């Protein structure tokens, strides 16, 4: 019996941690969750390939903090950034003046910066042309005369030191109705008349598409956002020709080039790597082959990645949560603490949890970003604990006294009572908890995309970014099917593991 338990655990561990997918690449490029960043990420990836390096692009990662930390940790080697973001966000706690100081601060983190790529993608406030004409709004100062306007800003803009709070102060803006939302959704909300003004990047292709007027920054609030590449200093030794390749792009991408490339992707549905490839060929005469992937192959890849995240995190959660639930039952005071902690974990927003986890995961020498990301697995593992711990606890405390008493009176040791009587009696409740965790886990695993681990979250994120429902469904439908499959799988497991005596009603 004891042997069977050990064999069971060993089997689960093997099931959880046998590697199934391994895309090995020597170098990794990162990009943030907007089209321009992804295109520039593709450009860098193609440059690296042209320099003869195997290179993988982790697209649309969760945010500046996450990407920069990943770069410092060596999880990625290159990513496109803007000087304004470096001064206002990455080093927001210091007053950085000038490029030289910026380079100095970066180099302290082991990071270098290329020269500007050639365009300034600063923030601007955009409103619909009709509204601008109707009310005669041309500059941000003009907004002060229209306190009734509803503002919808990207979540990042709401929080940044050069974002809404300082903008409001700088111009003494009176608007009260200010909402934070996803940048891509903001355009749609503006178009549908739900909000009147949004923040935009001046190279957004959608500015023209939605016929927006950009208000003049008449009191010079927004800093300069020159596009650059950040890369790890050690790249100089590891891949000098990639660094050289990157430097060749400096000064080559104008504002209109970038607008056009953004437009090709967002409005004409071209794939980012095609756009990047064409740019390199036409502008720099660099010819790079790109690998095509069929839709079926892509869905399959996402399925494998998704299963990989789910199985590792779920099985680890089962192996940890059941003992925790037992401990919580045996030591009620410790139990309150355990139940409290796993409950609190559940309330941490996923992106925050990922960012918190990157540094410690990296210190342990595990992969924090990218395929099979340990960070994503740990986050999912933590989210899966609550239902299992809670149900194990509930299942065990719900056992009638006559049962626990009979088991003790027979002369079974406490561990034998647990194994032979208490856990089997609690098994329907515990399995229900595992089932809940599994279904939640499949849904939450879409967060893996925020950190480059792929999965069904990848097409969902891309779909949101490009306002492409088809792509969103490419992730959402398989995820829903997988959740259903999970449900079915656990019904089968229930039949196998829960005693018939607990499942049948009296005859």
């Amino acid at each position, binding site marked *: 019996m004891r042997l069977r338990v050990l064999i069971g655990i060993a089997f689960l561990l093997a099931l959880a941690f046998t590697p199934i997918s391994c895309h090995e690449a020597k170098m990794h490029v990162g990009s943030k969750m907007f089209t321009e960043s992804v295109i520039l990420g593709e450009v860098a990836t193609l440059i690296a390939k042209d320099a003869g390096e195997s290179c993988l692009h982790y697209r649309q990662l969760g945010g500046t903090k996450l990407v920069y930390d990943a770069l410092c940790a060596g999880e990625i080697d290159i990513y496109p950034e803007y000087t304004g973001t470096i001064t206002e966000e990455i080093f927001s706690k210091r007053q950085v003046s000038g490029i030289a100081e910026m380079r100095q601060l970066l180099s302290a983190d082991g990071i270098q910066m290329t020269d500007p790529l050639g365009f300034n993608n600063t923030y601007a406030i955009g409103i619909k042309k009709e509204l601008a004409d109707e009310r005669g709004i041309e500059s941000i100062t003009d907004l002060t005369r229209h306190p009734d306007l509803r503002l919808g800003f990207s979540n990042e803009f709401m929080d940044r030191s050069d974002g809404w709070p300082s903008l409001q102060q700088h111009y003494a803006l009176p608007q009260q109705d200010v909402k934070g939302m996803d940048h891509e959704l903001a355009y749609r909300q503006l178009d549908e008349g739900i909000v009147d003004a949004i923040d935009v990047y001046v190279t957004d292709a959608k500015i023209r598409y939605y016929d927006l007027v950009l208000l003049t920054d008449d009191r010079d609030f927004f800093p300069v956002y020159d596009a650059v590449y950040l890369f790890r200093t050690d790249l100089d030794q590891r891949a000098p020709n990639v660094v050289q390749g990157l430097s060749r792009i400096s000064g080559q991408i104008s504002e209109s080039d970038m607008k056009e490339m953004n437009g090709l992707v967002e409005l004409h549905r071209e794939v980012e790597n095609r756009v990047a490839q064409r740019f390199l060929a036409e502008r720099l005469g660099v010819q790079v082959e790109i690998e095509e992937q069929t839709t079926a192959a892509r869905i399959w890849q996402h399925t494998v990645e998704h299963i990989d995240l789910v199985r590792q995190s779920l099985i680890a959660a089962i192996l940890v949560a059941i003992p925790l639930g037992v401990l919580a039952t045996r030591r009620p005071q410790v139990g309150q603490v355990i139940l409290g902690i796993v409950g609190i974990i559940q309330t941490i927003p996923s992106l925050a949890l990922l960012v918190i986890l990157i540094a410690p995961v990296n210190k342990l020498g595990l992969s924090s970003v990218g395929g099979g990301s340990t960070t994503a697995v740990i986050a999912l593992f933590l989210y899966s604990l609550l239902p299992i711990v809670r149900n194990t606890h509930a299942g065990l405390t719900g056992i009638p006294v006559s049962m626990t008493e009979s*088991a003790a*009176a027979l002369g*079974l040791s406490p561990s034998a009572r647990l194994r032979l009587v208490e856990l*089997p009696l609690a098994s329907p409740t515990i399995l229900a908890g595992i089932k809940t965790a599994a279904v939640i886990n499949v849904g939450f695993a879409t967060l893996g995309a925020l950190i480059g681990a792929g999965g069904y979250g990848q097409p969902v994120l891309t779909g949101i970014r490009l306002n492409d429902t088809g792509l969103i469904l490419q992730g959402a439908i398989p995820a829903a099917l997988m959740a259903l499959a999970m449900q079915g799988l656990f019904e089968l497991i229930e039949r196998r593991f829960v005693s018939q005596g607990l499942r*049948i009603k009296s005859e």
Partner: protein
Amino acid sequence: MLTLQDVTKSFGSKQVLEPTNLSIDAGNTYVLIGPSGCGKSTLLRLMIGLVEPTNGTVEFQGETLRPERYETVRQRMGFVVQDGGLFPHLNGYDNVALMARYVGWTQQQIQARVEELASLTHLESDVLQRFPIQISGGQRQRVSLMRALMLDPDILLLDEPLGALDPMIRSELQTELREIFQSLKKTVVLVTHDMGEASYFGDVIVLIREGRIVQQGQVGDLIAKPAEPYVTKFIQAQRSLIDGEKS
């Protein structure tokens, strides 16, 4: 066989058992009787270590009961509770065989012992293949008794074993139980609140009231020489029910 010396039990500030001395001699059947909440079940649980004494000691076969020895000692005791206490996830056979497997008997030994006990308790063998929820209350008590007897214990402790059964089955099982006790010549301690059942089984009747042993002795002693008026009152309260039916 089993002695309680100056044993008391309190739950929090409430004393449920006053200082109690009781000696259970081998081969006899003792019945602990008294009204609900008098402490008779607590007394039974003290004997098997399910309840630990606040003061005093419980000795079993010359050995003081201590938590670290509970498992070994309990394996020499059989315990049956009111609803049988069968584990619903195991079928009858597995319930009965559980402890024998745990202590490492062979399949053949187990098989032989189960057959022996099934015939002793008059249980049809196919009942053992079913789960507790699929069998009747009487069958459950038989299986429970088999489980308690499996390791051939030196003493059998039963907490209102027939309390949840309807009268016909109850009476039938009473007859059988007494035959079994007599044939096995085991020491038995049985808890009940039914005076008829007590006098039917008991070599010695221990009457308990509010955590105190009022009197112990044969049923005749209790009727003829009551230690205090309560004894008579208790016996008559139970008898009057039967009298009422007769008249």
